């Protein structure tokens, strides 16, 4: 069983037990100021399989960028082990198999978009002829063809971000690592980029990207990891998380009697003139019965929709307690 890498770098035969990325007990302490340490990552362990889109979620300062920088060799871990496609970080040439989009990227202002990609291709040792072909295809893919010969200093933020995607894909990488790829893009740009991410998966690549915007992961990720204050709180499928959490139901009722219902607190009036109460699902039957006994007529019972946002906030709150 092996799939041959189409790149010009070393050829890796991917076996069943090899992961796209394997992070074991990764810790990172920054030295900030004199002898003062900031623990940015604490014992993170994470395995990303080939062919998946993994969303790395976390609020600002959670340690997402720190993790991605360690994986791409820009930072040295304080402790722990990282393997990319089975190879250790120290093997520089393994980076021929990865593409990286840094956070808030910037490129040489003295170069044009074409020259940036040509430079990136040169660093990945892609021969000139092949390089030109790929550059043209990438410019099509990220829709920058018209500005290919314009200096990068004149690019808009969205163009820079798209150029960043193109430079990350120049070496046709197995593993694509994107640090907040959707930041700075307008809704159309976001849609396009999400489509690109999905198409990367269709090509058999693995995508590992960070974001703090939950809507980004909802549609496209196979699995997500939630990072908070340097610790990985949860890893898994989004749907599993959401069905795991206890769900509430919202009962809407109309009360015609003069006496207010005594059984329950937190009754809120709705815009239509009804009353509304949110309770745990287990208590639904008892509460409905007693409401009816007191003379209320039930209008509707609906499960409360838990948004990813709520889930995320709940997880982080749980962690803080």
């Amino acid at each position, binding site marked *: 069983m092996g799939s041959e890498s189409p790149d010009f770098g070393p050829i890796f035969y991917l076996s069943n037990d090899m992961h796209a990325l394997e992070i074991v007990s990764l810790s990172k302490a920054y030295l900030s100021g004199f002898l003062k340490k900031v623990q940015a990552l604490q014992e993170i362990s994470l395995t990303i399989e080939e062919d998946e889109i993994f969303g790395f979620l976390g609020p600002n300062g959670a340690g997402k960028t720190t993790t991605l920088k360690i994986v791409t060799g820009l930072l040295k871990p304080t402790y722990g082990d990282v393997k990319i496609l089975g190879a250790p970080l120290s093997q*520089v040439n393994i*980076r021929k198999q990865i593409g990286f989009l840094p956070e808030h*990227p910037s490129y*040489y202002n003295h170069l044009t978009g074409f020259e940036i990609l040509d430079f990136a291709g040169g*660093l990945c*040792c892609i021969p000139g002829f092949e390089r030109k072909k790929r550059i043209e295809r990438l410019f099509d893919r990220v829709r920058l063809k018209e500005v290919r010969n314009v200096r990068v200093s004149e690019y808009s933020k969205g163009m820079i971000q798209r150029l960043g995607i193109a430079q990350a894909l120049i070496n046709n990488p197995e593993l694509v690592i994107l640090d907040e790829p959707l930041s700075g893009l307008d809704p159309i740009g976001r849609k396009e980029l999400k489509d690109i991410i999905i198409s990367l998966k269709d090509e058999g690549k693995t995508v590992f990207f960070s974001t703090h915007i939950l809507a980004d992961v909802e549609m496209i990720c196979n699995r997500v990891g939630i990072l908070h204050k340097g610790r990985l709180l949860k890893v898994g499928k989004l749907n599993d998380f959401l069905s795991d959490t206890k769900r509430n139901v919202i009962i809407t009722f109309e009360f015609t009697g003069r006496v207010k219902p005594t059984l329950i607190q937190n009754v809120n009036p709705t815009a239509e003139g009804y009353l509304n109460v949110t309770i745990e699902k287990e208590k639904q039957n008892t509460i409905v019965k007693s409401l009816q006994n007191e003379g209320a007529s039930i209008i509707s019972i609906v499960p409360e929709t838990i948004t990813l946002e709520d889930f995320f906030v709940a997880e982080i709150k749980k962690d803080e307690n």
Partner: protein
Amino acid sequence: MKIRTLILNTFKEAVRGKIFLIILGFSIVLLVGSKVLVPLSLGEERRIIMNIGLGSISMFGILLAILIGSQLVYNELERKTIYFVLSKPVKRQTFIFGKFLGLLLTLLVVILILSCWFYFVLFWLTRLHPSVLLVAIFFSFLEIMIITGFSIFFSTFTSPTLSSIFTLFFFIIGRLAPDIQLLASKIKEPVSHFLLQIVYYIIPNLSNFNIRGKVVYAEPVGLNHILYSVSYALIYTIILLVLSCEIFRRKDL
């Protein structure tokens, strides 16, 4: 291929920057300086022009090496382009050497342009074009190479301003190296003597590279002197670069 890509990019960056202002500045200084001083020189015009030309080629080269060199690595960190470059399959050592060689290539091209202009002015004013002056220019280039090494070394751990100041400091005491040795030999007190000796061995002896006086007076430059100077410059520069790589390799970006 990687290092070639890095070298060419560094070269492009310099060329698309304001480097031509320096070249233009040089050309004007040389031309005006020669024109003004020659009439005052009472038959010494050859030497005057040669001295001005060789001296200013050296000075402009040093100036550029310090100005560009001290920013090379720092700018990449500051503008975050380093993340883009070093997440590619590029070793940090390759990056440092690429930057260094790119700047050296830039300086070589600049010095060649300046030298052509210098020969043109010299020939125009005196009808002379002695090729021995090229040896002096080559020696200046060796000195500039060491200075480039220093500015890259400092720029791996300090800001451009500090890096320029430190490099300038080493340039100045490097040129004063023989005086330091002389001082050391005069001082009898053992501790100071010892310390001065150490300083003398650490700093680059840049006086080796000043053969401008010699060539202007048409004194011969021995082959041994050339070989010694080339090896000295190479070894000194390589040591600086290896140190730079070691520092840079450990750096968290």
